[in-house]
């Protein structure tokens, strides 16, 4: 990076000086102070660390797991946690630790897939509504409102029921309930961007609507949409676990954490670990996403807070 050498500032001074000389420096300073704030926020760092661990666990599941997650051993059913089975075994003698390790793949699969579906849908609806305004906006936002007028789990249940149980259908059901907030955000962003001068300039040069949306508005909307999706992930995890618990998500014998909790219910009074372990996994991961998302706020808006 080229630094303003006239004043012989070090990079650090350049990023922290009160005398800002240009817009780029202002932006870099904003990011710098945000990053400093983020690093000083231990909870957000813990959240990030847990997410990284989750990714690693999912990537190296076969190496980390001590047992085959699907291998039954009825002779060793409902064993308490021990050196052989870190988290004990379930009613079919399967190793709970290994199942949780492999379950992380399902959780990440759901989170990622939902995010990948929700982003484009939400942005398409929101940007169209925000850019064209008028009746287009009214109709699209009314539809969004109607989706929003259900608690997301209830709506996801209805979709899952209509589509039939299964992991893919659960993903679709959750995605169908998760796009409206993204659409609202994209609409708000688009409306601010639309009224700015450079859009007017592009229009004068004869750029069509599609071109403006694709080349000017889309890139500017993207960061905040990505952030919002990150913030939504904890909610997605909980909804997915709820669907799994009710038997509408991943089907047995897949080691989905919500379904594991549900299956353990019948034995929980004598064997506490069968529900405690998978439930804790859900809690820790969703907490991590929440902590991370919470810390992201300070990162994005350094003036907020201190």
């Amino acid at each position: 990076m080229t630094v303003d050498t006239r004043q012989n500032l070090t990079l650090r001074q350049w990023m922290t000086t009160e005398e800002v000389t240009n817009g780029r420096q202002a932006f870099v300073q904003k990011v710098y102070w945000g990053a400093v704030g983020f690093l000083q926020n231990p909870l957000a760092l813990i959240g990030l660390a847990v997410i990284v661990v989750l990714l690693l666990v999912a990537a190296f599941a076969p190496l980390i797991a001590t047992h085959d997650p699907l291998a039954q051993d009825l002779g060793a059913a409902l064993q308490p946690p021990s050196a052989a089975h870190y988290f004990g075994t379930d009613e079919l003698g399967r190793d709970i630790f290994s199942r949780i390790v492999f379950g992380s793949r399902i959780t990440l699969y759901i989170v990622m897939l939902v995010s990948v579906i929700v982003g484009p849908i939400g942005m398409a609806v929101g940007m169209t509504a925000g850019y064209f305004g008028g009746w287009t906006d009214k109709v699209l936002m009314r539809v969004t409102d109607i989706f929003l007028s259900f608690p997301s789990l209830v709506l996801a249940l209805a979709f899952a029921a209509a589509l039939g149980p299964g992991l893919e259908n659960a993903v679709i059901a959750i995605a169908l309930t998760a796009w409206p907030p993204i659409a609202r955000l994209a609409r708000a962003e688009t409306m601010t961007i639309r009224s700015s001068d450079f859009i007017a300039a592009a229009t004068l040069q004869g750029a069509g609507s599609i071109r403006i949306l694709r080349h000017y508005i889309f890139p500017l909307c993207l960061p905040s949409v990505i952030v919002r999706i990150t913030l939504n992930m904890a909610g997605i995890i909980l909804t997915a676990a709820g669907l799994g618990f009710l038997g509408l998500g991943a089907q047995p014998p897949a080691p989905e954490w919500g379904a594991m909790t549900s299956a353990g219910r019948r034995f929980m009074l004598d064997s506490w670990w069968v529900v405690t372990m998978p439930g804790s996994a859900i809690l820790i991961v969703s907490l991590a996403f929440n902590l991370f998302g919470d810390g992201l706020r300070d990162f994005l808006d350094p003036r907020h807070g201190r």
Partner: protein
Amino acid sequence: MRRGLEAMMISNAGILRTRFGTGLSLVASILVTLFGLLALTFVIGRVMPVDPVLAIIGDEANQETYNRVYQQLGLDQPIYVQFFRYVSDMVQGNFGVAILTGKPVIDDIIRVFPATVELATLAIIFGAGVGIPLGVYAATKRDRLADHIIRFLTLIGYSTPVFWLGLIGLILFYAKLGWSGGTGRVEIYYTGIVQPITGFLLIDSAITGEWDVFWSAARNIWLPAVILGTSSMAYISRMTRSFMLEQLSQEYVITARIKGLSARQVVWRHAFLNIRVQLVTIVALAYGSLLEGAVLIETVFSWPGFGAYLTSNLMIGDMNAVMACVLLVGILFIGLNLLSDILYRVFDPRTRS
């Protein structure tokens, strides 16, 4: 603009931004939303399933039933005719017959609903009763240790899967400590003693003087209510903190301090009055999303309410009953939205003139 988790909490919930207009536009706005709800449930219940008839009568019905329902739904008709029929059925409260009970769905819902309302109401009392003071306290201790601890705890409450918390609660308070009753609304041997009057067991048993039943019901309801209320407590306290911080930075707070009020008096006599409006909305919203938790908690606690009814119909794939439940939740949300709108006008003088 509010950012981060609070912003997400608000915008993920539709209820907050739809401030209905007044008079005619209010009615129109509600009608349009209701119509939209019907269209959505129609699509989910009748268009999305591969075979809507099977989705309603289940796999085991005979050909005769199949043909009858096929005729009833008018599946040979164009889709807009089907939709028109659907709407007129729904408007007349004709939700069809539930396979599970063999009774009209509407009767079933009326029967199970009070159990959920009783549970959800206690849950929201707990959630708001603990969450609001906690949020106010955290705001006054901003960035100090107490604030960090409260924020972390509420975040845990917000991140915990409610069904799991229910199970852990049962293990701990029922099996280990014996502080709470088991599952269901009362102990088995007390069921059926009190005939429903209001449908709220605590009230009915008190009216009829069946105190044994009352105590059994109280022992059984506190745990699911507290657990159901936990996530709304977390939500309410976070939002309260955020609203309160906004108010505490206002000039009128300085004015009140200059008069000689203590920091605490300023919080409760001045700042708090200014967040009532927002709190009402938040609490109404939290009450609505308790229904979501109720679906899971009622399954865990075998609570014979609306959520358990919905899930048991889901299991057998009775789309008629499921869609009726979903529609009801939507209507309830609109109702809560409207209620918070009215309270908004009551509490904020600026909206009156």
